[in-house]
C-alpha cells in the first residue's frame, strides 16, 4: 500500500493519526515532546515568578502599572476560540472531509494571526513606554516567557500554512493525517500555556 493511497469516508480508519507505524511513532514522540515542553515553560514560569517584582531601585514599572486586562481578554478569546476551531478541523479529518478540515484550519490560522498581532502591538506599546527587554530582571523574564509563547504561536502558524498549502492538492491520506493531528495537539498545547500565562502573568499581576 502506498501512503498516498486515496480513501473514502467509509474506508478511512477510525484513528488515522495512529494507523501506521510511522504515525504511531510520530504520535507518541510528539506527546513526549510536549512533556518536555511542559518543563521548558515551567522553568520560564518559575523564573518569571521569582523575578516579577525585581526591578532596580528608581524603576517604577510593575505588573500593576503595566498590564491592561481588556487587551489580554481579547487575546485569550481569540486563542481559546482557535483551539475550538482546530477541534472542528480534527472532527472533519476523522470524517475524511478534507475541504472542511482545511477551512477550519484556515480559520484557526487567522485567529492565531490575530492573537499574534495583538501581542506584537502589546510589546510595541510597552517598549514605547520604556519597558524594554533590558529594563530590569522583571522585563527580561516577562518578555522571555510571553515571547517564547508568542514564538510558539508563530512557529505554529508557519507549520500550519505549510501543511495547508502543501496538501491542498494532494488531499488527506495516512501520510499527512498524523501531521495534521500533531499540529492540532501542538496548537492545544499553546492554548494550555496561554491559560497559565493569562492567569499567572496578567491576572495575578493585576491582583498584585
Amino acid at each position: 500500500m502506498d501512503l498516498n493511497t486515496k480513501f473514502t469516508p467509509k474506508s478511512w480508519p477510525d484513528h488515522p493519526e495512529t494507523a501506521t507505524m510511522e504515525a504511531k511513532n510520530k504520535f507518541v514522540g510528539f506527546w513526549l515532546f510536549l512533556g518536555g515542553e511542559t518543563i521548558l515553560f515551567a522553568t520560564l514560569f518559575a523564573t518569571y515568578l521569582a523575578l516579577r517584582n525585581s526591578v532596580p531601585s528608581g524603576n517604577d514599572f510593575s505588573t500593576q502599572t503595566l498590564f491592561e486586562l481588556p487587551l489580554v481578554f481579547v487575546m485569550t478569546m481569540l486563542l481559546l476560540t482557535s483551539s475550538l476551531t482546530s477541534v472542528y478541523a480534527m472532527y472533519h479529518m476523522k470524517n475524511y472531509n478534507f475541504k472542511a478540515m482545511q477551512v477550519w484550519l484556515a480559520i484557526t490560522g487567522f485567529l492565531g494571526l490575530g492573537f499574534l498581532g495583538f501581542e506584537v502591538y502589546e510589546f510595541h506599546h510597552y517598549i514605547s513606554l520604556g519597558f524594554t527587554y533590558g529594563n530590569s530582571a522583571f522585563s527580561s523574564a516577562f518578555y522571555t516567557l510571553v515571547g517564547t509563547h508568542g514564538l510558539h504561536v508563530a512557529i505554529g502558524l508557519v507549520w500550519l500554512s505549510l501543511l495547508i498549502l502543501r496538501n491542498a492538492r494532494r488531499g488527506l491520506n495516512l501520510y499527512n493525517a498524523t501531521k495534521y493531528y500533531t499540529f492540532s495537539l501542538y496548537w492545544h498545547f499553546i492554548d494550555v500555556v496561554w491559560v497559565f500565562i493569562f492567569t499567572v502573568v496578567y491576572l495575578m499581576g493585576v491582583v498584585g
Partner: protein
Amino acid sequence: MTTAANTVAQKKGFGATLWDWLTTVDHKKIGILYLIGGGFFFVLGGIEALMIRLQLLVPNNDFVSAGFFNELITMHGTTMIFLAAMPLLFGFMNAIVPLQIGARDVAFPFINSLGFWMFFFGGLFLNLSWFIDAAPDAGWTSYASLSLASTGHGIDFYAIGLQIAGGGTLMAGINFLVTIINMRAPGMTYMRMPLFTWTTFVASALILFAFPPLTVGLFFLTFDRMFGGNFFDVDYGGNTIIWEHIFWIFGHPEVYILVLPSFGIFSEIFTIFSRKRLFGYSAMVFATVLIGFLGFMVWAHHMFTVGLGPTANAIFAVATMAIAVPTGVKIFNWLLTMWGGSIRVTTPMLYALGFIPSFVMGGVTGVQQGAAPLDYQLHDSYFIVAHFHYVIVGGVVLAILAATHLYWPKMFGTMLSEKLGKVTFWFFFIGFHMTFFLQHFLGLMGMPRRVWTYNADQGWDLFNMISSAGALLMAIGVIVMVINIIMTTAKNERVGNDPWEDGRTLEWAIPSPPPFYNFAQTPLVRGLDTYWIEKQDGNKKGYIPAEPLSDIHMPHGSFIPFVMSLGLFIAGFGAMFRVEHSWGLPVLIAGLVLTFLSMSLRSVKDDLGFYVTKEEILRTERGSK
C-alpha cells in the same frame, strides 16, 4: 533502484563513502559516528586532564597560566560530560538497543541523524573557542556571577555550543523513548526488555525532562551576555541563584543520564559472563525507575552552602540519601548474579569487576556529602572532585570501555585483542585509583577544588604528585586501547553471531555486524533473555520469526540533518559577534534561515522510503552465513 542503497557503500569510492556517512540514517552507522565523535572528544578531554594534573604535579607550578588553567578545567568538564561520555553511550545505545528489542530501525531515523549532527556541530563550535578568542573559563557549571563577569567570548561559546549539542541530545532522547515504546518485537513486553534497554529508556526519559531546563538556562545566559537581558545581573534585579537552580535541575539528572546506561551495560556483562540470568530482574527495573525519579528531587544537594536555609537543606539531604537504597539494591543484585554462576573473566567482565568496588566507593562518599552539615566541609573541596570522578570514571568510563570490548565484535565483526584489553584495564584501573583515591584526603585536608596552583608545605604536596602520576597511567591505558583498535582493524578476523558464546539477548542472534535491515524477519520473543532461551531449545536460527519473509521497508538517507545543524552552527557565530562586527546579524539570520529552509524542505518533500526485496534479503542472509 531499491537495491541500490545498501550496495553504495561497498562499491563506490571515497567520495561516495563519505557521502554515505554524511547522509546515513542507519542507527548502526550513527552509532559508529557517535563512537568516533565521542572518542575524539574523550581523547581531547583526556589531554586537558593531563595538562591539569601536570600543572598540579608540584606546588607553585607555572606550567600553564592561571587563566588558561580555568579554561582547561572548564573544557575538561564540559567536554567529558557533554561531548564524550554522553555521545559514547549514545553510540552503544544506537548500535545495540534496536537489536535488543528486535527492531529493524529506530522510530525516527531522520531525527536520530539530526541528533548526531547537532551534537557534532555543537561540540565543534565549543572547541573552536580554543582558536577563536578564548575558551570558556567559569567551570563546567558556569555559575552566573562569574560567567557574566568573564571577559571575551569564552562563555558565549559555552552557551551556544551547549545549546546546539543539547538540542541534539534531546532529539536522541525522544527517539530512543519512542523506539523502545513502539518498535519492540512481538512478545517483547516491558518486563522482558534487557536491562540495557531499560536503562536507556529511563535515561532517555531523564533527558526529556532534564534538558529543557538546560535549554532555558543557556538561553538566559545567552540573552544576558549577548542581548541585554538581566536574569542574573543583580544591579538590575537579577538573581544568580536562579542559574544555580536551573543548572542543577538539569545537572543532577544528567549524572543519572550517564550512569544508568552504564548500569545497563554492566548488567548485560554480569549475566553474559556469569552464564546466569540477572538476579532480581524486576527489582533491578524498579530500582532503575526509582533512581531516575528520585534523581529529580535532589538537585539542591549541590547547593547546600548557597544559603538556602536549614529547612531546604534538610529536605534535600534526606531525599539524597534515599537514592542510596535503590543503588544498593542494584549492587547486591549484581553480586548475587555472579553468585552461583560460572564466572569467566574476559576483558568486559574485568571492567565489570573493577566497577563494583570503584562505584561503591563513589556511592558511599555521595551519601556522606548528602549529609548537609558534613557537606559544608566537603563542598567545593577536592573531596568532591574525588567523589564525582569515582562515580563518573568508576561507573561511566569503565562502562564505556567495557562496552567497547563487549560490543566491538557486534558492531564491527571482529574481536578486540583480549590480551591488550586486559593490559588497558590494569593500567587504567590502577591509574584511576591512584589519581583519585588520595584526592578524598586532599579535600579533607583543606584543598579547595579548581585551584590553579597551591603553596608548598600545606601538607598536600605528596598526594598531588601521586595523583598526577596516576593520571599518566590512565593515559597509557587509553593509548594501549587505541593500539588495540588499530591492530584489530588491520587484522580484521571475522567472527560469528555470538562471539562471547554466552550471549543472551537478541543482538547476539544475528550476524556481526548485522545486515542493514537487522532482522530478515521480525523475531518473536518468548521471554527474558530471548536468544538464550532459543539456544537452550536448540534453535539454530537463533530466533523464531514472527512473520513470513517479505519485503522490508527502509528509510532513505538524508543530507538535511547535516545542513540543519550546519545552519545552527553558522547562526551561533552570528549571534556571538553580532555586537562587534557588522556581519554578525546577517550571519545569524542566514544561519537560521538555512536551518528552517532545510527543515521545511524535509516536511514539504514526500519521503516514503524504499523496499528491500525478498530476493535481496535472501541473498544477503546467505552471504553472511
